[in-house]
């Protein structure tokens, strides 16, 4: 069957698409960094306010010491100089110092980020696969009872926020029928006989958080696939393909499905952002030790450097995924580069 598919070479316009991509992502990255840089500096007071205030317990009596401290933290320099300095330390991977935990923020994030990536990766993959197949199936049976039921159900699920879903799952599987682990990412102080047992334990702890996140991501994608496929069904090429007597599977996945792929990929990109946000909520419900739990504890202790760095790192993850997805559009749909 290969001969049916003449591969279209990428057009030279692909380079222009690359230029447009950079024109979006470079300013975005700079904006994110600038927000993080300006947030603490735009707020009233300054980080050493307590040292300057004679009424506070931390007041430093010696004016020379106060000036030295300001110089040490670079606060006596101009905003531009501070910004350059900040960019330099970012480039070195230095995200600051956690006030509450007295640890480099980079180390904290290194401990928490992998769990979030695992949770988001598993949920996005599951949600994408399920919603694509279900969307195709529903479009193929559009208007019938099964289609209407699933459209209503998923529209409803799409409206419910992640934390409400997660709490509902927690109630169902933790309080009503306690069958699954509710807390953390692995059994506390667990000893594993083999690596298989360890994987099994991590997987069991992943079930509820991943289920909550998957369910919250499935609705939008399902509706998109279903509607795109429905709109292709009446197209001439579909009628022709059917008239040629192509098997049903070919019609479904090669013709209708392929057309739904591009908007679907766009949505997967957009949803990476939602998935990361959702993971923050879901983790805070199940005490999953990812970025969500880190953020939750940082909020409690008002650990600003951790909150800023979390935003920076999560934004970097989302931007990277989006950039990668947009770069492969041209391969999925040769029309993109030409537009």
């Amino acid at each position: 069957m290969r001969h049916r598919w003449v591969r279209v070479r990428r057009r030279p316009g692909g380079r222009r698409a690359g230029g447009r991509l950079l024109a979006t992502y470079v300013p975005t990255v700079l904006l994110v960094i600038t927000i993080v840089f300006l947030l603490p500096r735009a707020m009233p007071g300054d980080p050493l306010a307590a040292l300057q205030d004679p009424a506070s317990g931390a007041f430093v009596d010696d004016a020379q010491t106060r000036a030295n401290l300001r110089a040490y933290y670079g606060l006596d320099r101009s905003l531009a100089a501070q910004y350059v300095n900040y960019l330099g330390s970012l480039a070195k991977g230095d995200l600051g110092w956690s006030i509450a935990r007295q640890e480099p923020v980079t180390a904290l994030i290194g401990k928490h980020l992998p769990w979030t990536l695992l949770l988001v990766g598993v949920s996005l993959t599951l949600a994408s696969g399920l919603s694509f197949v279900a969307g195709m199936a529903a479009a193929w049976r559009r208007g019938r009872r099964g289609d209407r039921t699933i459209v209503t159900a998923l529209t409803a699920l799409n409206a419910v926020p992640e934390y409400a879903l997660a709490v509902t799952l927690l109630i169902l599987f933790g309080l009503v029928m306690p069958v699954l682990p509710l807390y953390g990412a692995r059994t506390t102080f667990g000893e594993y006989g083999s690596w298989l047992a360890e994987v099994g334990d991590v997987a069991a702890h992943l079930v509820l958080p991943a289920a909550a996140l998957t369910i919250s991501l499935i609705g939008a994608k399902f509706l998109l696939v279903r509607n795109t496929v429905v709109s292709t069904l009446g197209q001439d090429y579909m009628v022709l393909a059917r008239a040629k007597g192509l098997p049903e599977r070919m019609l479904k996945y090669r013709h209708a499905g392929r057309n739904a792929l591009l908007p679907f990929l766009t949505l997967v990109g957009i949803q990476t952002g939602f998935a990361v946000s959702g993971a923050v909520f879901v983790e805070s419900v199940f005490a999953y030790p990812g970025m969500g739990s880190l953020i939750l504890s940082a909020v409690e202790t008002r650990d600003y450097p951790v909150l800023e760095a979390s935003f920076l790192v999560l934004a970097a993850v989302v931007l990277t995924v989006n950039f990668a997805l947009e770069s492969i559009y041209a391969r999925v749909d040769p029309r993109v580069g030409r537009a």
Partner: protein
Amino acid sequence: MSAVPGAVAVIRRRSGDRAARAMGAPQIVLGAGFVVLALLAGALAPYDPGAAAGEPLEAPSLAHLLGTNSVGQDLISQLLLGTRTSLFVAAFAGVGTILLGATVGLLAGWRGGLVDRVLMRVVDVVLVIPKLPLLIAVAAYAGARLWAIALIIAVTMWAPSARVLRSQVLSLRSRAHLRAAVGFGAGTSHVLRRHVVPELAPLLASGLVAACGHAIAIEAGLAFLGLGDPSRASWGATMRDALDFPGLAYTTAWTWWLLPPVAAICLVLLGLTFLGIRIERWTSPRLARHPGGASS
């Protein structure tokens, strides 16, 4: 025929319509009830939601209809006043989101050219930044004041509606009556106010409903993460208190402590979602429903 009906069936009816219509009716009652409850919450709530009004973990009784939490705060009062917080956020953040989104979208779509390119680049940039981590970082600094939270929500959430509205304005721009208006010398603001906005009213209305829903979900979410306004009751804060209570799983307290705020927020958001769909189908079957709109 096979499982795929012919092209005729596709033209005849976009499916899902009937399902949406069947889901429509109770929304209005629910919405009205929500607004009335929120406005009367101060009078209806029997206790101060922040004060210890009874013994810790009292089961529901006549004195405390939804019982009390671990520090003896009355839970029905928290639930009722949480309604008011949600309505406040829906009103200010929801309206703010649409105002910002509509201003940017209409200007970009109508003026085109450089204005369009610049504004849409801004939209692209805002769209890809993950919202929740940004909201958390900003809310942590801006302080937990409800109006500040509403403002932050509006400033971070406007981009998707700007994009949708812009594309609709683009399709309106070439219509004869709009070209005629311009021919008679109508300026940008006149055309937008007198012609474009009325034309897009259904889309603006359903966009507003969606924005209100997102605002409610985000406010409760921030409160759930501990970033809410501590001086006001919020469903999210009640949920967080319940989850933080170590003995929650050992008693039945969760049935009156954790369950009601979860149910309340689900009910309101479901109501708003189906209300939005209903408004769209109702007023204007012509405007295509935009799939995959933003959430949280």
